[in-house]
C-alpha cells in the first residue's frame, strides 16, 4: 500500500473511491485522445495530401481552401435563420404534440380518430414532400405563404406527429394513484391536468424534446428546396453553384451544422443534469 504519510491510513471505501476515480479519469482521457485522432484522420481525408502507407497509395479529397475562407462568412450568415426555423418549429411541434397526445388518450371517438389520422398521415409521407406541398399546394387555396412560414408549418406539423408519442408516454407515466389522490381532494379534470399531471410529465418530456430539436436543426436544411429561405444549406448551394465549388460549399455547411449540434447537445446535457437533480 502507498501511504503518503504515516498517520493517515485510508479506509477501504476511500481507497475504492480513489480507484474508481482513477479508472474514470483514464477512461475519459482515452476518449478524448481517440476523438482527437479520429478528427485528425477526418481532416487528413480532406487535406488533398497523398501518402504511402504499407505500400498502399492513399488519396484524399482536395478542397479549395481559399474558396472556403472567402465564402464561409456568407454561409455562416444562415446560422441565425437555421436556429430560428428550428426554434419556432419545435414550439409549434410541442403544441401539436401535446394536443395530439390528449387526442390519443381521449375516450371520444372523433377526437381519438383526429389524432391518429394526423399521426398516420404525417408519419406516412416524407418530410421533404410535405415541405414542398405546403409551399406549392396552399397557394391554390388562396393561402400564400413565404418559404419561411411554409417551412415552419411543415417542420412543426411533421415533428408534432412524431413527438405525440413522447408526450403521450409522459402523460401516461403519471400513475393512477396521482390522479386518484387529486380527485379525492376534489380537483376537476382540468385542475388535475394542470397541477398534477403536466408538471410531472414535463420533466420526462423535456430531454426527448431536446433530442428532437437537435434532429430538427438539420432537417431545416430541407426547407432550402423552397428556394427562398436563406438558411445554411441554401446559402451553401447558392455559392457552390455560382463558383462551381459545390463540395467546398457543402463542406462549410457540414461544419456549421456539426458545431451547432455539438453546442446544443452540450446545452441539452446541462438541462438533463438539472432536471435529474430535482426532487425525485
Amino acid at each position, binding site marked *: 500500500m502507498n501511504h503518503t504519510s504515516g498517520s493517515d491510513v485510508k479506509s477501504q471505501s476511500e481507497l475504492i473511491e480513489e480507484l474508481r476515480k482513477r479508472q474514470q479519469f483514464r477512461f475519459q482521457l482515452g476518449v478524448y485522445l481517440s476523438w482527437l485522432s479520429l478528427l485528425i484522420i477526418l481532416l487528413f481525408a480532406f487535406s488533398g495530401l497523398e501518402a504511402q502507407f504499407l505500400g498502399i497509395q492513399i488519396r484524399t479529397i482536395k478542397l479549395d481552401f481559399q474558396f472556403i475562407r472567402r465564402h464561409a462568412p456568407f454561409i455562416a450568415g444562415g446560422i441565425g435563420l437555421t436556429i430560428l426555423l428550428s426554434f419556432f418549429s419545435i414550439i409549434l411541434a410541442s403544441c401539436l404534440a401535446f394536443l395530439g397526445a390528449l387526442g390519443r388518450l381521449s375516450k371520444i371517438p372523433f377526437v381519438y380518430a383526429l389524432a391518429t389520422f394526423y399521426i398516420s398521415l404525417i408519419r406516412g409521407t416524407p418530410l421533404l414532400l410535405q415541405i414542398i406541398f405546403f409551399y406549392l399546394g396552399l397557394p391554390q387555396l388562396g393561402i400564400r405563404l413565404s418559404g419561411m412560414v411554409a417551412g415552419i408549418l411543415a417542420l412543426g406539423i411533421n415533428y408534432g406527429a412524431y413527438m405525440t408519442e413522447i408526450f403521450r408516454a409522459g402523460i401516461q407515466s403519471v400513475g393512477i394513484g396521482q390522479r386518484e*389522490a387529486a380527485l379525492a381532494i376534489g*380537483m376537476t379534470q382540468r385542475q388535475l391536468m394542470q397541477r398534477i399531471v403536466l408538471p410531472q410529465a414535463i420533466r420526462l418530456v423535456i430531454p426527448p424534446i431536446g433530442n428532437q430539436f437537435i434532429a430538427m436543426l438539420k432537417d431545416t436544411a430541407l426547407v432550402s428546396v423552397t428556394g427562398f429561405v436563406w438558411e445554411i444549406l441554401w446559402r451553401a448551394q447558392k455559392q457552390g453553384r455560382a463558383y462551381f465549388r459545390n463540395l467546398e460549399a457543402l463542406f462549410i455547411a457540414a461544419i456549421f451544422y456539426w458545431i451547432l449540434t455539438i453546442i446544443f447537445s452540450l446545452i441539452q446535457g446541462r438541462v438533463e443534469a438539472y432536471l435529474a437533480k430535482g*426532487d425525485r
Partner: protein
Amino acid sequence: MPSIVDVCHLDKYFGRLHVLKNISFSVDATEVVCIIGRSGSGKSTLLRCINFLETPDHGSISVDGIVINASESGRSYHRRLHKIRLKTGMVFQSFNLFPHMTVLQNVIEGPITVKRTDPKEAIEIGKYNLEKVGLTDKRDEYPSRLSGGQQQRVAIARALAMQPKIMLFDEPTSSLDPELIAEVLNVMQQLVEDGMTMLIVTHEMGFARNFADRVIFINEGHFVEVGSPDQIFSEPQDQRTQIFLDALKRFNQAENK
C-alpha cells in the same frame, strides 16, 4: 346522532364479477368504523365507492346530506359528486403524495386550488395540520426524502386540510415497514380522540379492537357480521369470521416468534 354516511342497497360489478352485493349501512358522526376481511372481499371497493373513485352500479350513497343515486348522470350529478369529495378525506395505501411538491405544498394544494382559499390562510391551515401529524420540521422537504410512515402522515394532513366531515382510510399501514406502522396509528388515534368520523379498511386488529365503535367483517361482497369490537373479536357468531380471525392470529403469532 345524525349519520354522516348512508349507503343503501349498493351493488358494484367489475365486468361480470359481482364485488359488492346489496350493501347497506351508515356511519354516524364521530363514529369510528373498521372494515375487515380478506383481500378481494370488496372492502376497498366499498370505501372507494363512497367518494366515487369507483362508480357504484346500483343503490345510493349519501354523505352529510348530499345524495347520489347510482343511475344518475349529468351536471347536477357532477356538482353533487364534487361536494361529496369535498366532504370526504381519503388516505391511500400507497400514500400518493405529489412528488413535485414539498410537504407543505402537498397539504395546501387542495385548499388553494380546489377551495380557492387565500394562500396565507392556506399556509396557516397547512402548518396546523402538519403540526397535528408531527411533521412541522419536514414542511420544505420533498416526499421522496421522507420515510413511508412520514409520507403517510403527510397524506393524512393533506386530507385533513380540506376539513372533511369523514376520513376514509384504505389500508393506511399495509405498505409500511412494521417499525413505521405505530407512528401512523398514533396519528389516527389522535384523530379518534379529536372526534373525527372515520371509516377504516385495515388489517390492524389491535387498532380496530381498541378504537373502533363498530367492526364490520365483509366476505365476498356481503356483510357477514357487524358488531362492537368485543363481539367480533371475542365471540364471533359466524364461522367465516372465526376462520378469518384465527388465520390472522396464527399469522401474527408466527410473525412474533
